[in-house]
């Protein structure tokens, strides 16, 4: 019975976690859509309220997925450092700062689009690599110095070539995550070493019990962090977890909002035979939202004044074509000449053109 209850609790917990994550991703998707539509000079509440949950989840998952992957990769590096013996796998703050500086220098060199600028970070890498291979203190020391640098170079190059959406926000987010992990690693490594050594020392002392060692064993078993009230410990954990998700969300959302590459073009073929061309914004269960976004930076031109959303009932739509690169959409326009346009794949049935 207790095993069944335990299993049920675990299943319920897993379901709650999945639902919570889905809600988090949906929230990110809604935030991204809101900011994109707002940046285009359009009222954001209409498309966000009409958009289907599936669409918001896909937008959110696309935004957060790459960052989760990045966290896993850098987390692997951090875990490798943390589980090492601090005396052997030596990774202190100088090594962490070197990796961070190399990542930044490579990134800036690529951003400036001047390949010769890579010479400076290349020189730093060469100094460490040559010194390590010539002196070769030990495999652990060499690895601890060079592996994080390799990650840093790969990060800088990857950001320069793969950065989607808002490039500045993506770069800042990735460097922030990398920097936080490498700068936390030395402290975590020492903490883990202390915990492991303390457990081993207690085990050794208990293996050969002596009366005079009792106080020492008690002192070793008395972890100062366990002396704090559980409420305080759990509050700290919840606050840290919330902070993690907030920071991840901010990075994911800002990296996806770029006025120049937020929208696709759309061609909507209506059942009355007409067409609408414009910018695809969102689709709901019963409506499709297309728009004419603002092409200017708010200079009050006539073009900006014409920014608008159009909500089309799905029941009136024969076909929607979404195409083109992510750019700033397409001016909204209707055309009665669609019937002769080869792009339109679905034609209205003869005699179904009620508008005619």
């Amino acid at each position, binding site marked *: 019975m207790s095993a069944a209850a335990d299993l049920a609790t675990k299943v319920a917990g897993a379901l709650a976690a999945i639902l919570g994550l889905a809600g988090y991703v949906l929230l990110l998707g809604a935030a991204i859509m809101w900011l994109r539509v707002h940046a285009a000079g359009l009222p954001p509440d209409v498309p966000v309220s009409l958009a289907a949950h599936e669409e918001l989840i896909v937008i959110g998952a696309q935004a957060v997925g790459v960052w989760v992957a990045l966290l896993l990769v850098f987390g692997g590096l951090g875990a490798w450092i943390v589980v090492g013996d*601090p005396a052997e796998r030596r990774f202190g703050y100088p090594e962490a700062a070197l990796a961070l500086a190399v990542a930044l220098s490579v990134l800036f060199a690529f951003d400036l689009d001047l390949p010769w600028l890579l010479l400076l970070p290349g020189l730093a890498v060469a100094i460490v690599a040559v010194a390590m291979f010539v002196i070769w203190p030990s495999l652990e020391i060499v690895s601890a110095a060079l592996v994080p640098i390799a990650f840093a170079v790969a990060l800088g190059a990857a950001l320069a070539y793969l950065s989607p959406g808002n490039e500045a926000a993506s770069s800042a987010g990735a460097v922030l995550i990398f920097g936080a992990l490498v700068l936390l690693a030395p402290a975590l490594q020492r903490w883990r070493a202390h915990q492991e050594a303390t457990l081993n020392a207690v085990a050794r002392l208990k293996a050969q019990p002596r009366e005079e060692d009792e*106080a020492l064993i008690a002192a*070793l078993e008395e972890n100062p962090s366990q002396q704090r009230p559980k409420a305080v410990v759990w509050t700290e954990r919840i606050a840290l977890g919330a902070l993690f998700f907030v920071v991840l969300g901010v990075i994911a959302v800002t990296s996806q909002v770029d006025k120049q590459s937020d929208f696709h073009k759309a061609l909507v073929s209506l059942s009355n035979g007409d067409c609408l061309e414009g910018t695809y914004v969102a689709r709901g269960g019963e409506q499709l939202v297309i728009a004419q976004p603002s092409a200017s930076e708010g200079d009050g031109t006539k073009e900006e004044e014409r920014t608008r959303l159009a909500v089309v009932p799905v029941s009136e739509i024969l076909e929607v074509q979404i195409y083109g690169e992510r750019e700033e959409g397409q001016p909204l326009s209707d055309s009665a000449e669609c019937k002769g346009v080869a792009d339109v794949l679905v034609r209205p049935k003869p005699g179904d053109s009620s508008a005619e």
Partner: protein
Amino acid sequence: MQAGGGGQGESRREQQLLALGVAAAVVGCGLLIVLGPDAFDDPARARLFISWGLAGLVAVGLATWLAVRVAVETEDSEAAERIASLAERRGLVKVVGVRERDVERNESLRATPRSQQAKGHQLAWVDLRKAALQGRDLANADLRGADLRDADLRSCSLRGADLRGTDLRGTDLRGCDLTRADLEGARHDAGTLWPSPADGGEPGVHLEPQGPE
């Protein structure tokens, strides 16, 4: 030696090289700030150029410092191995002028560290924060890298203990016997209460010749 721990045990040569690296970085940054804006018409690209230069110079400085540190430590370690081998043959355990923290990488010495030879407690890297251990016998204990912050070690016997790289911030050592204890690289602050000389021990690194007990 714990990574990033203190820096009080760093050699004068390393500190000088570090200062040299920082000075080179500062000069380089000055040049970048002066020349950078003229190198590009676009102010945003000029800022990016300066940022690239700053990060690159910091990277070169740190790389140089790390390379020199590894070179110095490896050289010391090899010398220490030779001297320690000689010392062992002559019945000595500690030798003047050797950076013993590097000896710990010598596997032959590690197999029989000094604290084991003297049957002290094996407490390297343990967490003894706020531990109440007044009057305990920790003579010859191996406490390398241990966290002893705010621990109460009054009147303890730490005679011949290996305290290299320990964290002694806020530790109460009044009345302790620190004779021949090795405190190289130990971190301490104003809250560390040291034993007075009258108690039989003095703070600091003790690297005098020492015969077997």
